[in-house]
């Protein structure tokens, strides 16, 4: 899918201040503290959820966009951890921004929901339905105590304001490609608190197959090769998977440098690739081309090619950067973690 005249005019990220070290989780469950998937992961505070994080990321995006919320025509929120099973977050965000005459939608589409929100907003802007829209990926991922996922399931949000291309753009969309199959490597049934997963089945047939297919598909369609991209961002459930994926597709470590954050904050699910993209934008040069590929279990992958525009130079410093959030941190132990995550059941 080629995209014409649609750009990012604002972006913002958010990562909660709390961290737990994987070695602390390993201590509780008797696992070798050196054989853990990430160093540490972000933990939402007791008063945070995917909605409050989306609000902060969106307010950051608005600061960089230099627009009044009045021209926003849509707010699409992608998350698999909404505070309510029934009652959307998008309308609350609209209320916070003080806008009502808009399209507001919550989207559950596994970890792919954030990029799919982005794709939808691109479509609405590109078709002329709206002048500008907001796409958000946000999650406070759930990991069952003692489960492998507990070592990575983290929290974060990223928000993008997407508009018709103009003079002050941060980046321009070049194309997008999606790839889907029915591959249930991870799921959460209705009414269940924690998800389940297929262990090693989450690798080859799921993560690697879909990201590879979407990335290849996009590059083929646009006639691009890995060396045409300055940066690449993949969905990042851990550090190992995206590193191996980059290698398989022919990208080097330098291209992956800014887009891989899971070692610092863990897996932020629907926000993961979008926070990675935000960090790339925090560091990229004008003209850099970026490949972003998400993955959601059972949902497939979205790939985007994005070119950095010169609006980035004046807008980058208008809101906190991803690393401002990553470096402000407070460590908590497993007891406080359990309190914050409401895992202490009475």
């Amino acid at each position, binding site marked *: 899918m080629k995209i014409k005249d649609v750009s990012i005019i604002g972006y913002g990220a958010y990562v909660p*201040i709390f961290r737990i070290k994987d070695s602390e989780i390993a201590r509780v469950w008797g696992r070798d503290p050196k054989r853990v998937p990430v160093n540490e992961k972000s933990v939402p*505070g*007791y*008063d*945070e*959820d995917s*909605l*409050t994080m989306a*609000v*902060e990321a969106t*307010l950051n995006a608005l600061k960089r966009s230099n627009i009044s919320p009045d021209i926003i025509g849509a707010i699409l929120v992608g998350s698999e951890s909404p*505070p*309510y099973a029934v*009652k959307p977050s998008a309308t*609350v965000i609209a*209320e*916070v921004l*003080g806008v009502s005459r808009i399209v507001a939608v919550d989207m559950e589409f596994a970890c792919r929901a954030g990029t799919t929100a982005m794709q939808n907003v691109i479509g609405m802007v590109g078709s002329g339905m709206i002048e500008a829209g907001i796409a958000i990926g946000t999650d406070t991922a759930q990991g069952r105590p003692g489960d492998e996922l507990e070592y990575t399931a983290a929290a974060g949000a990223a928000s993008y304001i997407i508009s018709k291309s103009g003079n002050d753009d941060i980046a321009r969309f070049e194309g997008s490609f999606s790839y889907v199959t029915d591959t249930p490597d991870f799921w959460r049934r209705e009414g269940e608190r924690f998800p389940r997963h297929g262990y090693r089945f989450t690798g080859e047939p799921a993560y690697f197959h879909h990201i590879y297919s979407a990335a290849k598909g996009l590059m083929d369609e646009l006639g691009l090769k890995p060396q045409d991209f300055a940066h690449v961002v993949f969905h990042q459930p851990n550090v190992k998977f995206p590193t191996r994926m980059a290698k398989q597709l022919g990208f080097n470590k330098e291209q992956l440098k800014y887009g891989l954050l899971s070692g610092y904050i863990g897996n932020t699910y629907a926000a993961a690739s979008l926070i990675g993209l935000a960090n790339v934008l925090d560091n990229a040069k004008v003209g850099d081309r970026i490949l972003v590929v998400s993955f959601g279990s059972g949902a497939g992958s979205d790939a985007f090619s994005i070119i950095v525009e010169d609006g980035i130079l004046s807008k980058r410093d208008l809101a906190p950067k991803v690393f*401002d959030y990553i470096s*402000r941190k*407070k460590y908590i132990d497993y007891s406080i973690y359990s*309190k914050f995550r409401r895992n202490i059941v009475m």
Partner: protein
Amino acid sequence: MNTFINSVPRSWRERKYKYRLIGGICKKCNATFYPYRGSCPYCGSDDIEEVNLPKKGRLISYTIIYSPPSEFRLKQPYIVGLIELEDGTRIIAQITDVDVNEVKDGIEVEAVFRRYREQGADGIIEYGIKFRPISD
């Protein structure tokens, strides 16, 4: 207890002021106050306009709640502060993202959107503005 507190419309009708920090400014005596109301608490004038209050301020006083009201049980300990916003308007709000032994009078704070009360595990969640220390 307190099932009457669990009223959806009661919290719903305040959402604008709670989500967006909208105060009042008296056109007669120029005082500002939070939240908005139709009459000036200082001079009694009824000529009041809504105003978007600044999102940054300073902590004037604070307390750490160790024995909370029942709706806030299991959230303890938490900090409640009196904040003076940049324009001088004051507000009482929770101070978040800070340890109870780190909070100090006079620290600079900024507004964040957070959860306050939950009307039980199956009730609505009441959101509003809290403040967190501005990191250097």
